[in-house]
């Protein structure tokens, strides 16, 4: 019999043989191709991972500091102000000073221990200092342990913010070894138990998360710290499977390149802890400051636990908004941390007994000064590339005085509300801007761009171009006073009706005074003090538009002003900062000192990069500016600014100028004391009328701010070549004898009025014959 097996043909046998070949080889080839594709893809991902990681690591925004508070015996500073500064610095108020960053306060003295700080001119070690006060002055400063008196002590400056990265993220970079062990322990315990053991992904955690999600027990994260860090590399928060897969691959790649502590460090500087207005709080350094007013090294276990607790949902667990929730989760974190063996029972008991211990947002240590930082940024951009500012970690020492800034912010906001109530304006109708600087050095102490000062937005101080009205007048009057052979403070000006045909204009220009009156012959000083439009305009026309514009330019107005008569009465539109520059030059006696917001720049490591030195240029004679200043002081003594006397004592000899524009749309006041120059603008953003004049709107705000700054009087130095004479207030002549009509005025040598009158105003015999013909010719 033939075996059945022989029926199997060669073809089918071959076919049978081929099938296994296709399956193994084919799958093997497919597998190779897939692996190759994955490999290429991994190389691509690797590139992304590396550049992102290094980008995150080294994208350090420039850090800006306020001016350091200098303390010395005799300085005008109250105990409350020193405490405010220490609070802003994040110093902890304690019962006994034991280490840096702590202070003790009694009603008459403060003892604090400074933190070590790297200034531009060198490092300063930590010191324990006692400052005693008497009234509003520092009485004594001494080293606490030795009792050694100190002539001068410089406190570290407050960090006021950074030049943020493009997505408005701020950083206070910490190094791995700066972060307390208990923070890292809590973080590992809650977020990634096996962080030190896995290679980027944790399969156990993933599995647990998958099971929990699948069984409906809630969505649990299974992401490692590495994965969470990688998540930050992507700008869009997709939650697809594809994205998840990418993240896992990238996490593995990251761990291949970088060691655990580097990854942890970057994570610590990236992780999100909530919002502060438009500013995102990223990183444990910033979070420590923001929530506890402490540097990261000063955190205690209960602080660490709270921060770690917030990671799950910084808004949901916000300790200021939802304190019970936050406390509950914090305690949960502490319990878990203890269970995993990172805390001893004693440590656990101590920590869980603590309250939340967050600072109130008012003393959050890092207030937002966006308007001032804006100025810093603009000034820096002249010298540095924007890229460097956002990534080199530069340390910028600015001129901001936080005490002045806070005072001005609060006063502006309060007063605008009051004005709205008093003048029956809608809430929010008004807004304002303030600039405060130091006359002699040009250092800008405060910039306020809006009544809601903590928020970024339109910076009116730098960018709101509004007609300056009568604030322009000093430019006219200075031009005149620089020609003493023609004009003195007593020169009679004509305030009778004026009509002027501007070339190219159809209508006649007919300026009017604010009081709708004409005042006849008025002495020059009165025309300025009372801000008479008509006589000022006539004076301007006499002098010529070009010389007057030249004076404005010398004073520091950078804007190109239109060469029309209307400019005399302030049709020129300038932002408050340029007005401040103009009045700065007057306050500095004719020496233009460019306003600056920066003192020094250091590299991240503390190496000095650039110092912005004081720079002066004499642009007007001391004598002519002295005369102008006197007239501006008279504006306060008896002119349009006389209501200031209700708030500030006459002994300060404040000099200033009110400014009001057509239809009462802009209310200005610009002026100075011996140690401050300030400009205030009030108006409506849509240019609607406010019903306020310079005297009723900006002036009270200006005075109230100034009253809180302990201002010094304007020094009464008579420059060489200037003599003071008693003159008759209305007659433009000397006056014999003391009387109510007498006003002491300065004159440049050779320009003193020769005419003399009695108090009653009648000419005395000595002068009658001589100069009658001069009187007629005027």
């Amino acid at each position, binding site marked *: 019999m033939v075996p059945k097996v022989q029926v199997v043909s060669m073809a089918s046998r071959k076919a049978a043989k081929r099938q296994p070949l296709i399956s193994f080889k084919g799958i093997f080839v497919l597998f190779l191709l897939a692996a190759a594709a994955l490999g290429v893809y991994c190389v691509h991902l690797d590139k992304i991972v590396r550049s992102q990681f290094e980008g995150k690591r080294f994208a350090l925004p420039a850090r800006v500091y306020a001016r350091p508070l200098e303390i010395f015996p005799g300085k005008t500073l109250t105990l409350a102000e020193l405490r405010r500064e220490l609070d802003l610095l994040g110093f902890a108020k304690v019962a006994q000073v034991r280490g840096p960053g702590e202070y003790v306060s009694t009603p008459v003295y403060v003892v604090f221990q400074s933190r070590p700080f790297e200034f531009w001119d060198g490092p300063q070690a930590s010191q324990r200092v006692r400052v005693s006060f008497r009234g509003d002055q520092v009485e004594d400063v001494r080293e606490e342990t030795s009792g050694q008196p*100190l002539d001068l002590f410089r406190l570290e400056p407050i960090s006021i913010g950074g030049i943020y990265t493009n997505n408005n993220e701020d950083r206070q970079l910490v190094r791995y070894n700066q972060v307390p062990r208990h923070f890292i322990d809590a973080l590992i315990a809650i977020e990634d138990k096996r962080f030190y053991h896995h290679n980027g992904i944790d399969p156990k955690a993933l599995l647990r998360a998958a099971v929990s999600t699948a069984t409906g027990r809630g969505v649990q994260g299974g992401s490692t710290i590495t994965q969470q860090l990688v998540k930050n590399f992507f700008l869009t928060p997709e939650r697809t499977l594809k994205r998840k897969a990418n993240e896992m691959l990238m996490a593995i790649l990251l761990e291949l390149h970088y060691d655990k502590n580097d990854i942890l460090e970057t994570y610590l500087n990236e992780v999100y802890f909530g919002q502060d207005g438009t500013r995102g709080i990223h990183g444990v350094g910033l979070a420590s400051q923001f929530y506890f007013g402490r540097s990261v090294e000063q955190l205690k276990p209960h602080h660490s636990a709270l921060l770690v607790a917030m990671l799950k949902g910084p808004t949901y667990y916000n300790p200021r908004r939802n304190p019970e929730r936050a406390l509950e989760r914090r305690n949960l974190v502490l319990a878990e941390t203890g269970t995993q063996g990172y805390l001893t029972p004693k440590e656990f008991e101590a920590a869980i007994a603590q309250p939340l211990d967050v600072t109130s947002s008012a003393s959050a240590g890092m207030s937002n000064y966006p308007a001032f930082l804006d100025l810093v940024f603009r000034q820096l951009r002249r010298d540095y590339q924007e890229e460097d500012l956002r990534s080199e970690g530069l340390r910028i020492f600015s001129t901001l005085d936080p005490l002045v800034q806070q005072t001005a912010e609060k006063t502006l906001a309060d007063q605008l509300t009051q004005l709205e109530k008093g003048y029956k304006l809608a809430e929010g109708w008004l807004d304002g801007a303030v600039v405060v600087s130091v006359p*002699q050095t040009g250092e800008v102490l405060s910039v306020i761009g809006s009544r809601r000062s903590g928020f970024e937005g339109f910076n009116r101080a730098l960018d709101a171009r509004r007609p300056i009205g009568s604030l322009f007048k000093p430019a006219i009057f200075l031009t005149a006073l620089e020609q003493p052979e023609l004009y003195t403070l007593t020169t009679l000006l004509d305030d009778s009706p004026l009509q002027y045909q501007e070339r190219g204009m159809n209508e006649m220009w007919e300026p009017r005074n604010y009081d709708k009156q004409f005042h006849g012959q008025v002495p020059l000083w009165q025309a300025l003090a009372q801000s008479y439009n008509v006589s000022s305009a006539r004076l301007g026309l006499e002098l010529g538009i070009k010389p007057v514009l030249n004076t404005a330019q010398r004073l520091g107005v950078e804007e190109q002003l239109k060469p029309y008569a209307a400019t005399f009465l302030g049709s020129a539109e300038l932002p408050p900062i340029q007005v401040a520059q103009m009045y700065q030059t007057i306050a500095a006696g004719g020496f233009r000192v460019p306003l600056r917001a920066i003192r020094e720049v250091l590299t991240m490591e503390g190496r000095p990069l650039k*110092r912005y030195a004081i720079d002066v240029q004499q642009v007007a004679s001391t004598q002519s500016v002295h005369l102008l200043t006197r007239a501006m002081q008279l504006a306060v003594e008896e002119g349009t600014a006389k209501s200031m006397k209700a708030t500030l004592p006459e002994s300060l000899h404040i000099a200033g100028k009110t400014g009001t524009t057509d239809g009462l749309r802009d209310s200005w006041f610009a002026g100075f004391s011996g140690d401050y120059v300030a400009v205030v603008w009030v108006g409506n953003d849509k240019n609607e009328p406010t019903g306020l004049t310079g005297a009723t709107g900006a002036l009270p705000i200006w005075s109230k701010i100034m009253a809180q700054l302990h201002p010094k009087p304007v020094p009464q130095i008579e420059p060489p070549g200037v003599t003071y004479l008693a003159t008759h207030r209305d007659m433009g002549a000397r006056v014999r004898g003391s009387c109510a009509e007498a006003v002491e005025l300065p004159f440049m040598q050779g320009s003193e009025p020769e005419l003399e009158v009695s108090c009653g105003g009648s000419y005395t015999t000595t002068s009658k014959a001589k100069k009658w013909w001069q009187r007629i010719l005027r």
Partner: protein
Amino acid sequence: MKVIQPLILCALLGMTSGCASYTPGTFGSDSDTNEASDVGYSASQVSDNSAVQTLYDQAMNYAYAGDYDQAEAALERGLRIEPNNAYLWFELARLSASYGNLNKARELASRAQSLAGGDRYLQGHIQKFVNGL
């Protein structure tokens, strides 16, 4: 603030050098001008305020050592305390001349003059200095 060391140094310098002042670099070959710049002020002449005195001494030490940047920074710190102190402005002017910025020196000297008021002693020195620029 380590004020002791500069003070001791200054005291020693003061004892050994009398009225000598730093004159690194020359900005005029006229011996008269060197005389003007040879005038050194004691810290107590410059100010009654001990903080300003300390900063002035620090500045002078830096200047003697040729570190003009630090010297300027110290004088500017003094000016933040006493912005109208003509001696500090004058010293800034002299520093500027020392490192060759004569325009700046002239302007700073003018500022010093505007603040010196009736102090004829100081006014005289500033004028001599300006003449020598």
